[in-house]
């Protein structure tokens, strides 16, 4: 920041503070509601804070969701498989698109970029048919096997990073006696750690947040992810116990927040680079 620039006008400061409060309010409201007794959630005009925080709302909400820990385990398992699958396969593919010269590479890469324009709802019907034919409906496979076939966006991201690694290094390694795979594994991957971490974080979020995939491909309740479990809670209970719904929503959000705060630097940098190409 350049101190010589003219100082910030007062209305900028006020606007920032106001907007900041507005953006935080829903979080506040979520947590506040989650700690209220049911009757206080209904009060008019609303009560900002619970008269006494009802911590037991959280275990109660988990109870109401049914096998909460099973759902959490399912979500974690899927997130783990997706992260591992996408990080390695996308890095592998990105290597082919950035550190090797071969005829047709740029054409293929263009096709890869174009596939980012095909959203899941467009192709979900035949994909469902495909998985059905494989007998995978009602299993976890549809939700993690594709991750091992590289994601276009992640490939794009990693390719940009790989391109920034000097070519000399690969050549030195080649003369040192590395095979192509070893260059990938021992030279490029260790150097790309920040980018790999970014991809891993994005993929974790994407899987943890995914709703449509589990909705379509999972059948039995014991396979539900947290997202589906929470939706079921929303659907099944009558009388809308908002304190429980807010508690459960907070619980689903919590791991994401923790992860974000642990990796904030990488995360923000990752987001920033995705938009700047």
């Amino acid at each position, binding site marked *: 920041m*350049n101190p010589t620039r003219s*100082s*910030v006008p007062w209305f*900028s400061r006020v606007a920032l503070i106001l*907007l900041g409060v507005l*953006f*935080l*309010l*829903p*979080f506040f*409201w*979520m947590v506040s*509601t989650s700690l209220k007794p049911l009757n206080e959630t209904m009060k*008019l005009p*609303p009560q900002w804070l619970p008269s006494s925080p009802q911590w037991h709302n959280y275990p109660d909400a988990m109870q109401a969701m049914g096998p909460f820990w099973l759902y959490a385990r399912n979500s974690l398992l899927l997130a783990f498989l997706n992260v591992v699958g996408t990080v390695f*396969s996308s890095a*592998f*593919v990105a290597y*082919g698109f950035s550190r*090797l010269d*071969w*005829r*047709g590479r740029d054409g*293929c890469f263009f*096709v*890869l970029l174009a596939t980012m*324009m*095909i*959203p899941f*709802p*467009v*192709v*979900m*019907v*035949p994909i*469902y*048919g495909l998985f*059905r034919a494989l007998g995978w409906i009602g299993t976890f496979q549809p939700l993690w096997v*594709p991750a091992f*076939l*590289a994601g276009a966006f992640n*490939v794009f991201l990693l390719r940009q990073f790989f391109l920034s690694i000097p070519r000399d290094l690969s050549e030195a390694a080649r003369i040192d006696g590395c095979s192509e795979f070893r260059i990938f594994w021992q030279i490029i991957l260790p150097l790309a750690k920040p980018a790999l971490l970014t991809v891993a974080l994005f993929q974790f979020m994407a899987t*943890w*947040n995914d*709703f449509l995939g589990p909705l*379509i491909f999972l059948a039995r309740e014991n396979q539900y992810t947290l*997202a589906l479990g*929470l*939706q079921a809670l*929303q*659907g099944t209970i009558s009388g809308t116990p908002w304190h429980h719904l807010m508690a459960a*929503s*907070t619980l689903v959000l919590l791991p*994401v927040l923790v992860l*974000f705060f642990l990796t904030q630097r990488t995360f923000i940098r990752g*987001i*920033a680079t*995705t*938009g*700047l190409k």
Partner: protein
Amino acid sequence: MTLGERRNLIKGLVFVSPWILGFLAFNLYPLIASIWFSLCDYSVLSEPVFLGAQNYVDLWHDPVFWKALRNTIIFAVVAIPLSTFLSIGLAVLLNQPIAGQGIYRTIFFLPSLVPAISLAILWQWMLNGPMGLVNNLIRPFLNIINAVTGSHLQAPDWLNDPNFALWGLILTGLWGTGQAVVIYLAGLQEVPEELYEAAELDGTNAWQRFLHITLPMLSPVIFFNVLMSIIGALQTFAVPYILTGGGDGPGRSLLFLATYIYQNAFDYWNMGYASALALCLFVLIIGLSLVTVHYGEKKVHYSDR
């Protein structure tokens, strides 16, 4: 092709082979199969039966399809400019020498981390007619307006009022716009300080500097983001689906093409019709993207060209 070139080609293909497999299985095959299914009566449970263009004829006469198409387009056309303005505005506000810049950036970014399920349930509560926080914030202002002008404005029952449900969703979307703020802020910080200093010496005011330096320098980022937002907005499904408790809102006001595809495919098992809808959505995405590219490319300023 020389021996070396052939060797390189094989190496390259080995490395990109996972993607090629994925592309064939999850992009190319589904697109082609969609075309075939859309010409069939197909329920997944039995083999597709060729119908010809019947699904498309039905679609043309299906008022629900038009409703979904209309909602989808309105949502995209309203939400994308709004969130673009909001996020550029926030980024510009943040790109000032203020204390706590990082904290503000985090605050604006956080909502975009919230999983769709939590986000939708939270906003269902926020937008609740009598008890929701949104209305409780609005009411005092409405009361003042009513007192001054003698009108009888009421806070809307957002999600239960066909006229307001879409706006409720847009509001939800605006709260989650933080990712773009971070991207725009990074873009703003890439603009060389000398440009502003030179312009200041040339006697420009802040607004002129924004118009003639900030916007052009930021235009490639804006362009890229808008393109991504279009693709995102057109496939919107989870949040409205959960906001409406697994439905499509009062008077189908929150029915989107993706929702309608889902309903046809997995509620009615009418995969043929769903495929026809999916292709319409695909054409819409390609069309809107091409329009954006066509009008955008001319206005975008690439500093390295």
